[in-house]
């Protein structure tokens, strides 16, 4: 699969779907690089649509939050970005998900290859029941990494702000770590693959506020290098960490724009009601 990093610069106003673009976005003439482009995507589970004709663009090295009430299809959409929906029997994807001009659902695309470039962190921390070291090293090793694996593990653990806590017990079981540490280990594990995009599916919903704050700080660091898409139920979290926010309801994209605009003066009435906590 051709994975040449082909960067495409567009004026920011082209980033947004015309229907949902807020007028406030066209103000400054800053440009964002697009890394992921969702075009007219409909995702069905055994014929029932969970995501209905959604178009969206994900800018590079930014945090994009996907919010919305339960069952609105936000996780489904996120999982379509690295083809994790392939494992759900009866799930079908129509439309295009373009990763730097490559349609992830094209016939010549190997889903395994996609997941090497687009990593994922799950809702519940899910480390392998193995040592901390093995958790991080496994991804690179099975993908033919032949350089210094110790260095790669250290680098990933440092990037996930976990190194200082675990450097003396890399051989210990990952299951002995606390929930927050486990989740950072899962982030380190994803980072070890050096992906371009990291998808996070409610990464803090199983964590306490302190651990959540640490993960959010971490995300802030990571966006220097990585594109992050986060699904969250926590609106404060979305407003704290993300630059862009997409609001979904019942499988449809209601509004997409800069986070501060979505939260301060949304154009859509439903968005306003949701972010102010009147429903959902």
């Amino acid at each position, binding site marked *: 699969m051709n994975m040449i990093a082909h960067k495409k610069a567009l004026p920011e106003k082209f980033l947004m779907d015309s229907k949902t673009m807020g007028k406030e976005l066209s103000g400054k003439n800053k440009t964002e690089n697009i890394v992921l482009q969702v075009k007219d995507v409909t995702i069905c589970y055994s014929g029932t649509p969970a995501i209905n004709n959604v178009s969206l663009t994900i800018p590079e090295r930014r945090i994009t939050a996907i919010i919305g009430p339960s069952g609105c299809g936000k996780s489904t959409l996120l999982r379509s970005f690295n083809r994790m929906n392939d494992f759900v029997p009866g799930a079908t994807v129509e439309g295009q998900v373009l990763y730097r001009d490559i349609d992830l659902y094209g016939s010549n695309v190997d889903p395994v290859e996609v*997941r090497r470039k687009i990593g994922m962190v799950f809702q519940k921390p*899910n480390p392998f029941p193995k040592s901390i070291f093995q958790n991080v090293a*496994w991804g690179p090793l099975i993908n033919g990494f032949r350089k210094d694996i110790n260095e790669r593990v250290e680098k990933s653990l440092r990037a996930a702000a976990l190194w200082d806590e675990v450097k003396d017990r890399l051989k210990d079981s990952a*299951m002995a770590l606390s929930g927050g540490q486990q989740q950072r280990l899962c982030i380190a594990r994803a980072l070890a693959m050096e992906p371009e995009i990291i998808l996070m599916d409610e990464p803090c919903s199983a964590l306490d506020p302190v651990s959540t704050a640490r993960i959010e700080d971490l995300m802030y660091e990571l966006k220097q290098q990585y594109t992050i898409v986060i699904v969250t139920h926590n609106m404060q979290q979305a407003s704290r960490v993300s630059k862009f926010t997409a609001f979904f309801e019942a499988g449809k994209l209601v509004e997409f724009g800069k986070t501060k605009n979505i939260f301060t003066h949304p154009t859509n009435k439903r968005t306003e009601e949701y972010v102010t906590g009147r429903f959902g």
Partner: protein
Amino acid sequence: MISRSLTYRYWFARAFHVFCFVVAWTGVVILGILLFHVTREGIQWLDLQFLSDFPSRFPAKAGIRSALFGTLWLMGFTALFSVPIGIGSGLYLEEFTNKNRFSRFIDLNISNLAGVPSIVYGMLGLVIFVRWFGLEQSVLAGSLTMSLLILPVIIISTREALRSVPNTIRQAAFALGATRWQTTYAHVLPAALPGILTGIILALSRAIGETAPLVMIGALTYVAFTPEGPMDDFTALPIQIFNWASRPQQEFHELAAAGILVLLLVLLMMNSIAVYIRHRSEKRNL
């Protein structure tokens, strides 16, 4: 204040408690009675000479050497055939195929096969392995027949063990760009291994006590040598026990009891290995 209806409910709860207690102990007590009876009859015959001698028509000289070795050969080859096929089938059905009409068809058949009486497997073995393949009454024919018998059990327990591996582990591996095989080999199989091993040992413990299929394929009841290879004739512990128990003399009945004791000991050993494996894996996963 305790109302009348509450008193009644407490009484009922206590009665049910007692009922469950009695039911739970019934099996243990019956096993105890059986063990006591067998031990009392057979213990006097149980010595090294009994283990190292071949069967004889003189009770004092009779031993179970050929039966014990026959059983070991039989179990070894049975495991050799049934374990790879059983784990492979379980992996295929649970990890590598989607739930479609074909897999449901296989599924249904395996569940049915698990309930087929063992003598039917004996008939199958007689026709296919003994006659068609011309294996005669060899260790090979016996173990192939036994493999057929325990395959469904191994497949079903393998699938149970695989199903108990949390899906989040698979997803984690897939999200790192692992293939199906890499995921299965590195994470799913190791996590399921204790369950699979337990299933295999329990399946083999079932096979070790089976008599009917071996009688059906014509395993010999009197063998005065130990098998040297897979094509040799053989006898097995349950056959030897059956043989002694069907003789009129009291001494032979006692020999049968001693044989049963040996068989039970082997079974107990196998089951304790299974318990040990399960216990160790439970500790590790904490």
